[in-house]
Structure formats: C-alpha cells, structure tokens
C-alpha cells in the first residue's frame, strides 16, 4: 500500500497534474460519446453549464438537488469508513421518504403545528432509513450475505413498496398515477425562498449533516474504531472492538442520513411521494464518496458539482434531443478516470522508487 500522505508532501504538483489529467480523460471520453451520438459536444457542455449555473433560479435548483445528495454522501462516508459498500442507500432513501409521507398523511388533518409535523416527518424518515439499513446490516452480520447483494435486492423491494403505496393504499382519488400521491397542503411544506424551490432550512439540515459526519469520523474514538473495523475487521475484533455492533451502527447511521434525504425530498422538494423519490441520489452519493476518496472534507464541493451536472442536463432532451443520462455518463467517466489515473500514479511512483512494497 502506497503512503498517500508521503506522496502529497513530496509532490503536491504532480498530484494536481494527475487530477487535471483525470478530468481531461473524462471529458475526452464524454466528448467521444457525444460525437458517437452525432451531437455537438461544445453545445451540449454549454447547455449543461447554462442549465445549471446560468441564473439564480438555476443555481437554486442545483442547491435543491445538492442537499439530499450531500446527506446521502454523508451517510455513505460512514459505511465506507467501516469498509462497507452500502448499495442499499437508494432503498434507504425511499423507505425514509415513505415513513415521512406516512407520518405527514397521519398528521395533516389533525391541526398539529407545521414545525412539529416537519420534525416528526424527519424523525420518522430517519427511523425508516435506519430500519431498512439495519436489515442489510443484519443480513451481513448474521447471515454472511454481502451487503452489495442484499442492498441491491432491498432497493428493488423498496421501489416495489413505493409503487404499491402509490397505486394502492395511497393512490390519488380515482386512479393511481405515476405522478405520485396527492400533494400535501402548502402549510406542510418546508419554508421556501419565494419563487424558488429552495428551502434554507433544508440547506441547514444538509450542511449540519456533513459537518457532524466530518467531526464524527475525524475526531472521535467512535470514528477511529469504525476506521479500524473498515481496514481490518479481523484484527479489530481481536483487539477487542465489538465489530458486529460497529458494523450495525455504521449501517444505521447511514440509514438515518438516507432517511433524512428522503424526508427532504418529500417535505422540501416534491411535497408528495413519487415513484422515483430517491432521484438516484443514493448511487450518485456512492460516486461522490468514491471520487473524494472517502474524505468528508471534499464531499460538499464535489456533491455540488455532481448536482450541477444533473440539473444542467435536464434540458438536453428538449434543446438537443439528447437523453439526460449524459450527466450520468460524465459522472461515471469522471470517477472511473480518477480511479484509473490514481492507479497509474501509484504504479508510476512504485516504478520511480523501485519500492514494490510501499
């Protein structure tokens, strides 16, 4: 294993160089894909830029997408620290959203003050996410089922539950539709800046969330033990750390944050339950966490960038007749080229020092 810190000390310049190289590689690949689709690359990139940062309205849309993505990423940093691939985060967002919707439906006609309803909504969302994550955790700890598979399976189940609720018990009067459940009355929405979908309160939740995770992982014994479990579960156990408990805790903390993200989606963005309530932010959060090499400090800016790509590509189908999944291609290419370039750099370092053991 190569010493990352030593490398940074020695050659910060080359590190930057490789970073730029990775971005160029990703851009080159995406451009190639665009040419293959017979689309004008520059025009497409310009559209993404204008579509995301071209006006205050657009920027506020990016922030709206940034918040749940940031929350999901924050949770995933915990599971990654514990050495877990919590692919089930998508499902955890959905179940969180379902729990939030459920409690809002229960309270909406009772005259409960808005503040209390919203707090209850977040709490239940957190509980829902944590429970769904605990399922993957239990399967891993007590059944030896790899969390990638259980998480994936549970994602599909969560989608099915969402659809079932939208078309079944919670369907709109008359017939259920893909547009989701009946929207909540406006007094149950999180307070928003007029004329936008941006809620400052949601932003506070997101920023506090990532800050809490940063402190938890960097400064506490809990975070250190989690790191030990992630790097070597066998030794961590022998040393006396209750690894099962820590693994479960990591899953549930991630679930709590995913549930929060689900709550934000319901109470601050869509104001109802829709089939694609998670908006893919779980998977996107996995990519962000990978891209920042599981370091909490960088999560916020990178998540913002990814959110901007998502929002910017929304109008591609209308303007250029391109599918909006271009943002996914670009994000994937970015993560992939960072992994590849990082590998090349390490290989180059090994060759350079002749030190094969690192």
């Amino acid at each position, binding site marked *: *294993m190569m*010493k990352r810190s030593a490398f940074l000390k020695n050659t910060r310049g080359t590190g930057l160089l490789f970073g730029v190289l990775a971005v160029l590689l990703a851009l080159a690949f995406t451009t190639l894909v665009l040419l293959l689709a017979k689309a004008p690359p520059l025009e497409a990139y310009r559209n993404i830029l204008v579509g995301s940062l071209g006006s205050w309205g657009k920027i506020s849309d990016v922030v709206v997408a940034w918040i749940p993505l940031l929350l999901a990423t924050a949770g995933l940093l915990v599971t990654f620290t514990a050495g877990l691939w919590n692919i089930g985060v998508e499902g955890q967002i959905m179940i969180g959203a379902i729990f939030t919707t459920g409690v809002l439906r229960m309270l909406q006609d009772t005259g409960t003050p808005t503040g209390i309803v919203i707090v209850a909504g977040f709490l239940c969302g957190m509980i829902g996410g944590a429970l769904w994550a605990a399922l993957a955790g239990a399967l891993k700890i007590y059944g030896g089922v790899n969390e990638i598979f259980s998480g994936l399976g549970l994602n599909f189940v969560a989608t099915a539950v969402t659809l079932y609720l939208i078309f079944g018990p919670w369907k709109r009067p008359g017939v259920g539709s893909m547009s989701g459940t009946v929207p909540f009355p406006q007094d149950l929405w999180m307070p928003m800046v007029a004329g936008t979908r941006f809620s400052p309160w949601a932003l506070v939740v997101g920023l506090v969330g990532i800050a809490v995770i940063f402190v938890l992982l960097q*400064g*506490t*014994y*809990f975070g*250190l*033990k989690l*790191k*030990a479990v992630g*790097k*070597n579960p*066998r*030794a*961590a*156990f*022998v*040393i*006396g*750390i*209750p690894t099962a408990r820590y693994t479960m805790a990591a899953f549930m903390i991630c679930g709590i944050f995913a549930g929060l993200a689900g709550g934000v989606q319901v109470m601050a963005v869509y104001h109802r339950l829709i089939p694609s309530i998670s908006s893919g932010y779980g998977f996107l959060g996995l990519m962000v966490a990978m891209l920042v090499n599981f370091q909490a400090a960088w999560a916020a800016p990178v998540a913002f960038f990814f959110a901007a790509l998502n929002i910017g590509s929304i109008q591609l189908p209308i303007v250029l007749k391109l599918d909006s999944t271009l943002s996914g291609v670009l994000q994937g290419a970015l993560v992939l080229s960072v992994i590849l370039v990082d590998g090349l750099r390490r290989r180059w370092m090994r060759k350079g*020092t*002749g*030190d*094969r*053991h690192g």
Partner: protein
Amino acid sequence: MDVELRNIHKSFGAVHANNGISMVVPEGTIQGILGENGAGKSTLMKILSGFIQCDSGEIVLGDRVVKIETPADAIRHGVGMLHQDPLDFPPMTVLDNFLIGHESGGIIPDRRTALKDFRQLSEEFGFSIDHEAYVDTLTVGERQQLEILRLLWLGARVLIMDEPTTGISALQKEKLFATLRKLAAQGMTVLFVSHKLEEVEELCSCILVMSKGKLVGTACPPYVTDDLVRMMFGKVVALDERVQTRRSNCVLRLEGLAIEDNRLNIQNVNLEINAGEVIGLAGMEGSGQRQFLRTLSGLMRPVGGKIVLLGENLTGKNYRSFVNAGISYVPAARLEEGLIPGLTLAEHFALLDRQQEFFINRERTEKTTREQIGHFFIKGTTESRIEELSGGNQQRALLALMREELKVVLVEHPTRGLDIESAIWIWSKLKERCKQGTSIVFISSDLEEILQYSDRVLVFFGGKVSEPIDAATTGVDQLGQLIGGKGW
C-alpha cells in the same frame, strides 16, 4: 548440473537483500545455505528459481549462462524449488496437484500416465500418499513429498529446499534427509536452506553462511559449530538463563475441555495454570494447538468442559468477556489479525486507550505512544503506519499494545521470523510479565524455544493432548519423538 551464481544483487526499497552474492555448487552435492531469518537466503533462492528477478548478476547452469525470468524458465532449465510453505492447491486432489503445470498430453490431461509415474516415483522414494486425497488433508511433510515428486517428474536436476524442516515430524525429517542424500547420489544438485545449525551440519557436504544480504563465509566438514555461529551473528550469542518460576495459586483452570472443528476433535483436557507460569504448546502445525489457544482466548467456543479464570466460569461467554476478564491473545499473523494496516502507531494506542471519552484525546495519545515507543525500542514515530515497520518492530508494537494487569497472555509464535536478538528481547519482556504474576501460554514450532522458556509443555498430535511435561527434565529428542507421534 553445476550451479553458479555470479554477483547477484537484489534490493527491496532501501533493503539490500542480496548484495553481490557469488557461489558455485557442484553437481551431486548437498549445499547448505545457513543464515538467520532475514539474512537473504530465501531471496537468493527465489532468484535462482525464477520466482523473482535479480537487479543484476548472472546465473550459470552447467557451462551456460542462462536467463531465468519466471518459474517456467527455471523449470525448463531443470531448476525446481520447494518453498517454505509448500506452494500447492489445498482444495484440489493430490493427482491434480501433481499434474497441473506438466506439459504432457493435449488439452485433456493424461491422468493415466501421470498416475503411473506418480506411483512409480512414490515407490522409488518410499512415499505413500493417496493420489485421490485432497491436499488440505495432508500433513506439511506429505505436501513436501508431493512437491518433491512433482519437481522430479518435471525433470528437475537442481532442487532448492527452503527451510523444509519447519512443521514436519521427526520421522518425516529422517525420510526427507534420506531422500535428499539419495537424490544427490543420483547426480541431483541440492541447495538446502536453513537457519538450524544441527540440520545443515548433519546433512550438507559444504555450507555457505549468509548474513545481512552478504555471503560471509564457507565451511566444510568437519564443522566447528562455534565458527558457524560467529559467521551467522557476527558474535557468539548467549541465551538467557532458564528461570524457573515458582508455582503458586491457580489462575486458569480447564476442566474436561472438548474442542471440535471441521478437522479436529480434542477431548477432555484438564489443566491448571498457575500465576506466572509459562506453558508451551508443541506439535506439528495443524495438530490442534492453535484451536486450543483460540479456545482459551474465547475466539472459539468449546463443545464441552469448562474454562474457569480465578473462580469465574467463562465457558460459553463471548470473546469480549474473555478480554475484559484479563485474557489477551497475541496472534501470529501480525498484519492480518493483530494490527491494522493503514493506521498509525498513535492511532493504535488511541484505539486501546482505556479511558475513552467521546472525542479523541490527542495529547494523551501522543504521550502514551512516545512513552511506549521509547520503552519498547520501536523504530518508528507516532505517525508511522504500522505496515511500514519491520516485522520485529511490529512484534514489539504488539507487545507494547498489550494492557497492563493481564491474567493470562496467549501468544502464537512469539518470535517467528525475528532475528535472534529481537527474539531474546521479546522473551525478556514476556518474562517481566510473568514476574508480575501473568501466566503465558504460547505456541511455537521451535522446540528449543519451547524448552528454553516453558515451565511445562503440552504436546499435540492429531488432536490428542499429552499430560503436562516438565520442561526442565525433557530433551529436544524426547519432545521431537512425541511431536512425531512416537511414545504416546
């Protein structure tokens, strides 16, 4: 075929593992290569067998300079190596292991010919291995025999044996030596690598001594042991005096302990371990001593019997209860089970801090780490990652990380892979613990170490456990016989 190495150099990072080594080994001889752990013997042999490549130097076989870049090249030139831990495929059958890599037959392996040759070779050397058995059911000695047969079948004319006597029984060792003598008589060139003086003296027609990556001397019979020791270590190393501890009150009591896993079945072990006592567990690898130690540590649960620590019945409790009760387990696989690669020394000490608040107390951690680094002479800083330390320093770190006030310390191979001075130092630290009343139970495959440091010894053989033997009145030969299954 004569083997000649000319000016071989090999470095791993800053470590010069082979520094200008030249040697000639004539055909039909058994050449001993002696040196302590880390002297560079294995590296040199791996270069000759193509497992790794040298930075510079030449290999001459017969009268031709050859290029050996892979094991495949080496085999083609007739060089075969038996690695310290036999490199075979445990979940596959003996016959499959025998024929994988052999070029005979088309796409379908010619099992009939392979079996015929296998039987013929087995007969010639008096080995009896069931060709249908799975390799993971064989003893280390049998796996070696299989490897020897395989290399012979591939047409090896130079045979390299790397520490072949580790983990095999006395009986198998005799057989191995007979086999090697016979092969040499048939014209095989044998390179026998070992750190055990008596073995090379007994077997080899000439001895080369290596130390710190260099060739430091040669010796021919009759051997003078003191000279060899001086060449190996640069000086004569005196072992500690045997210190017999007083036997006093019982700390750990085992009553009718029974252990079972998918291979072994250990029945009815009764033992009382006293405060400050050292118990050595001897036996070939896989005889049950590891399972026994892991059961005492709480990692495995016994299927019957009781484990009682100072009157408290720990049977069936989880590992953490054992840890909290004052039992500490020090595994042999340091980087796999004992330490956490990627974390620094300071982080290790923080992990084991007894008074943890919510936030990490960096000052206290820093202070403890400094103190312990000084106390245990660990070559490294508080910010050194554990995997950057040498094996000896990792072992020191493991000991430094052990809590104070322990009742029982369970150690697997406390000095494996360490140079002799580190080994002596490690034991002095362990003995300090004993003086404070801590009992030690340890596994070692080094009989000298067992007899040197234990008060009593338990011998394991195929899941059977001997009555405790008094180490003071027992000799290496006697112990060796028991380990090999004689005299039960």
